[in-house]
């Protein structure tokens, strides 16, 4: 009907290897633009290319939802930690070494049989980097930012989470510098699992509040 469909299609493009000379594919406008800007800033002494590489490596391979999963698993097995986590989330998370940029002031939200929490940032895409890494495309997308505050149950249903009418849904719009992490309910049938095994069950989506944690089938 029109050829103006730039936005959301990007979400489903998988990695395009657009590094220099890869497959000899021509560079797109945006690739050229970013490359030129990087050269300009390097030439002007404003950025150090090695620092760029380190930044990328940090957020692509070192910081991610595995951190948050460890926090959740520890809270499930260690009642004293859980208490500290809910009382002073930033300090308790720092005990595990997860601190820094976009996680300076953390708030952990506990899901219960009567309360389901879900996190959004309607104005930009604020997200707790030290515990979850960088946000997925859907979290930054128009549909999620637009709809979660007005139709949270509809959004949750699309993620396969059907919250009962007797359960209160609490949506947290991260409009300031607080960053939120959902502490999901520990699934039944995981009593004998170790902290490390439990951490394997905890998904990024569960810590945003758009999924529940499931026990492994054959446990």
């Amino acid at each position, binding site marked *: 009907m029109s050829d103006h469909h730039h936005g959301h299609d990007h979400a489903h493009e998988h990695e395009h290897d657009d590094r220099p000379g890869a497959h000899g594919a021509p560079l797109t406008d945006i690739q050229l633009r970013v490359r030129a800007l990087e050269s300009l800033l390097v030439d002007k002494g404003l*950025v150090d290319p090695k620092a760029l590489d380190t*930044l990328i490596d940090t957020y692509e391979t070192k910081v991610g939802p595995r951190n948050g999963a460890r926090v959740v698993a520890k809270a499930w097995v260690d009642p004293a930690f859980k208490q500290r986590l809910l009382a002073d989330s930033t300090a308790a998370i720092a005990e595990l070494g997860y601190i820094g940029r976009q996680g300076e002031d953390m*708030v952990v939200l506990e899901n219960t049989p009567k309360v389901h929490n879900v996190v959004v940032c309607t104005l930009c895409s604020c997200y707790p980097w030290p515990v979850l890494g960088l946000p997925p495309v859907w979290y930054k997308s*128009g549909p999620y930012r637009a709809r979660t*505050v007005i139709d949270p149950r509809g959004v949750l249903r699309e993620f396969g989470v059907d919250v009962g009418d*007797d359960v209160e849904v609490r949506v947290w719009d991260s409009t300031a*510098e607080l960053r939120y992490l959902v502490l999901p309910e520990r699934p039944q049938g995981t009593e004998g699992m170790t902290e490390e095994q439990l951490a394997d069950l905890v998904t990024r989506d569960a810590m945003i509040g758009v999924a529940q944690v499931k026990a492994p089938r054959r446990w």
Partner: protein
Amino acid sequence: MNGIHDLGGMHGFGPVDPEPNEPVFHHDWERRAFALNLAAGFLGRWNIDMGRYAREHMPPAEYLATTYYEHWLYGLERLLVEKGLVTGKELEAMRPQGPVAGVKALGVDDLPKALRNRRAARMDDHLATPRFKAGDRVRTKNLNPTGHTRLPRYARDKVGVIDRDHGVFIFADAHAVTGQKVPQRCYSVRFEGRELWGPDAGPRDAIYIDLFEPYLEPAYPEGGHT
């Protein structure tokens, strides 16, 4: 500003569309655009609120038609020029025409400290006495500034209850425009879905929004007109 970025409550965007096994970055240029933003930010010529405000200036049609890191790139280019690190001419030609005095790129060795900062927007609690406490009923003001604000349109002139006092933070609205670090209390305010969206909202939906004290005024007691 009542910008296109203020998406809360809009219809017409279609379903949320999660990607299975999504990579952290989808393109190499996203990696570089992300890192350039952080590295240039470390030069200290602008703050995070200026960064957000810059992205909010992207023309609305362009904002919706582009992805997150394109928004970042737009904001970065805008700030580089606005703050005098790059001239408009340099940006257009993508060729350096002269050095910038008094600026030093962050090196690899400086990174760990920069990334592991423990304090960013929070200020000392004694800098602002709280006007409200948990349980207080408040009404958000009807503010429509052309400047930066973190009071979303959907939550203006609405009654909620203070859930908790987060303490004192740099007031984003001033920080984005003047760079001044004005201390203000920041509260989590709970709004019932029906207060925000009317009778069709779910009866057991609540929205919690982090709001600075200047956005709020005391609300009339329950039973009065809200």
